[in-house]
């Protein structure tokens, strides 16, 4: 557990210090949400109806921005090779780095979402549901994203490739996240079932992704 915590702490520290990545992601999130009403026109009913979807899709795109750097920073300076010779298995390294990405990117973006909801006339009753679905659903994005980041580690234009790989896999998360939030907003459906499915997707990703990431990294270092 000690190497896991050490790596998690280091990655969070690096994310704070090289703050550029999170700043860019948050700025991007704000901008996407802010310009959408300009394009759609001042129809408050329409905006509040599509608000959960917009907030989810925009968050997804913002979270993608920092994925390419996830393993790159350690590959460039040779840290990855030393991490691989540690007593901790590479799977644990992968889990620590994915968790660090979630804590340093997905959680701040999720916390920002309710404020952006104001711009879209999101129903106040839906705020807790929005926050719960984002926090509960984004682990899947970070962990599945880690697989794609590891697979594209040494390829040029890896960033674009990551988006192509991650987005299809995040469709289930997106569907159930929006479904659960809309259910609360309109009061027509139940919040429980889609939210449980959302959590299930996250849990499965958290378990499977480290194995896949470690395999991909071992291959990349050959």
């Amino acid at each position, binding site marked *: 557990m*000690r*190497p896991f*915590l*050490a*790596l998690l*702490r*280091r990655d969070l*520290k*690096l994310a704070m*210090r*090289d703050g550029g990545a999170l700043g860019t992601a948050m700025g991007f999130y704000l901008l996407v949400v802010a310009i959408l009403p300009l394009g759609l026109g001042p129809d408050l009913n329409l905006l509040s109806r599509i608000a959960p979807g917009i907030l989810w899709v925009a968050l997804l795109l913002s979270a993608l921005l920092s994925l390419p750097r996830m393993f790159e920073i350690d590959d*460039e*300076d*040779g*840290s990855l*090779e*030393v*991490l*691989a*010779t*540690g*007593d*901790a298995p590479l799977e644990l390294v992968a889990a620590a780095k994915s968790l660090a990405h979630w804590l340093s990117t997905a959680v701040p973006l999720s916390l920002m979402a309710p404020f952006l909801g104001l711009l879209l006339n999101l129903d106040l009753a839906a705020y807790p549901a929005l926050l719960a679905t984002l926090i509960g659903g984004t682990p899947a994005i970070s962990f599945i994203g880690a697989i794609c980041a590891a697979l594209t580690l040494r390829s040029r234009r890896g960033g674009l490739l990551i988006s192509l790989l991650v987005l299809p896999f995040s469709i289930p998360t997106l569907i159930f996240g929006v479904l659960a939030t809309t259910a609360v907003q309109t009061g027509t459906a139940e919040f429980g079932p889609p939210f449980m499915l959302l959590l299930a997707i996250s849990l499965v990703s958290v378990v499977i992704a480290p194995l896949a990431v470690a395999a991909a990294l071992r291959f990349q*270092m*050959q």
Partner: protein
Amino acid sequence: MQMQLAADELAVTRGERFVFSGLSFAVSEGEALILTGPNGSGKTTLIRVIAGLIRPAAGELRLEAGDAERTIGQHCHYVGHRGAVKSSMTVLENLEFWRSFLAKDSIDRLPGRDGAALDAFGLLELSHIPAGYLSDGQKRRLGLARLLLTRRRVWLLDEPYASLDAASQGILDAVLDRHLRGGGIAVIATHQPIDVSSQRELQLGVGEAEAG
């Protein structure tokens, strides 16, 4: 029983080409294996094979009298071309991270604080400076300081003398000598003569054979 790192008919391919094949050697504790040979002869590759980063195409590598629960790579300190140094963390933070990451339990940790490792490589006054401000040679020394953080029996050094000044080269020689006297093994790829007590040389040629 003596610890021994032995390779038997080791072969590594890169694409269609053998980097080397039929390579056998054995190094016992207290000995340094010096890898020499022209560029592209596979010195770095061999070191990465021992570290467990590259899987050999054929042959076997074993560590006798090692810890059965660990892989060969987990017995090794690997210091490659790049120092595994984070620019935005201070010199001390870099070392503290590697110490807590590499040490499995307190037995692995060597006595003395990180200061001792820094002191050995003359980095003590720089310990609170972000590593990004260090010169190439100082970064190199910081990478080498990792060797002294936790006890690992096998040291894998890839061109450790590159961009080191004469004084630092002397320090590295002394550190290496102490490691070998303490029953350690070292595998060093280098182009220059090394001044340690017990060493044997392995000359790697340029791989010319085509892989079937």
